[in-house]
């Protein structure tokens, strides 16, 4: 059941990214281009997603366990350290260069052009390098 529910979660997330056109790098870059032809759509995507998630997460707080797993796995770190800041800053530079982040890139993989494939391969390589350095 965990496998099936993860498949459904990924599927609905992918549909949401497609419906909101976040799979179109031009749309993401135009949101980031506040000094140019600004397209505020992404603000509403994040707004709709955050409000829905916030309400849902509040409702789930009453539960002691998830449906198909033993415990909830929630991040416990609260410290604002250099890893968080440097990591987020580098992530943002990459996001601004390509207009792609992990969700929309993976959603596009089967309909992808060569550029998406190169992006995903490089992204996995970047993740692997981070793991080598951190361990």
């Amino acid at each position, binding site marked *: 059941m965990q496998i099936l529910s993860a498949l459904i979660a990924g599927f609905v997330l992918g549909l949401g990214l497609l419906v909101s056109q976040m799979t179109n790098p031009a749309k993401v870059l135009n949101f980031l281009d506040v000094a140019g032809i600004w397209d505020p759509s992404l603000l509403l*995507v994040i707004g709709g997603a955050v409000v829905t998630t916030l309400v849902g997460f509040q409702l789930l707080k009453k539960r002691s366990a998830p449906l198909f797993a033993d415990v909830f796995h929630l991040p416990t770190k609260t410290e604002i350290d250099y890893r968080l800041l440097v990591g987020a800053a580098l992530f*943002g530079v990459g996001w601004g260069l390509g207009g792609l982040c992990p969700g929309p890139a993976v959603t596009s993989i089967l309909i992808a052009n060569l550029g998406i494939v190169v992006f995903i391969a490089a992204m996995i390589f970047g993740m692997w390098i981070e793991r080598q350095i951190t361990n």
Partner: protein
Amino acid sequence: MYIPATEFTPLSALAGGVMIGLAAVWFLLSSGRIAGVSGIVSGLIPPFSPGVGVNLAFVAGLAISPIAYSVFPGGTPEQTMSSNLWLLGAAGMLVGFGSRLGSGCTSGHGVCGIARLSWRSIIATITFVATAMATVYVTRHMIGG
């Protein structure tokens, strides 16, 4: 440089956003986990951690979603992007490295983290939106302008 214009699409943006939220809530309810795509993808890099099946299923769900989407009228996702493979490779490396160093990306920090009112995620999101906007400013208005 050529900059493709896009229209402001408030309704589809909100509808898509709500679906993204529902996916995150469902994943937490069913599997007890945060729907952060960078963490899920990095879980597919060996050596595997427990839960690799769940990660694989999540990624498969993402990848098949365009097939269902294409059934609807107008369901061909529009994608306008750079054809410069060096730029996309550099972008991918930064996104992969940065998202793991910073423990999250747009979905994990930007959606789930903010919804949990986590200070780490709020600060991470402000940071990556700021550096992304600065990067677009440099590439579109200083170098490419």
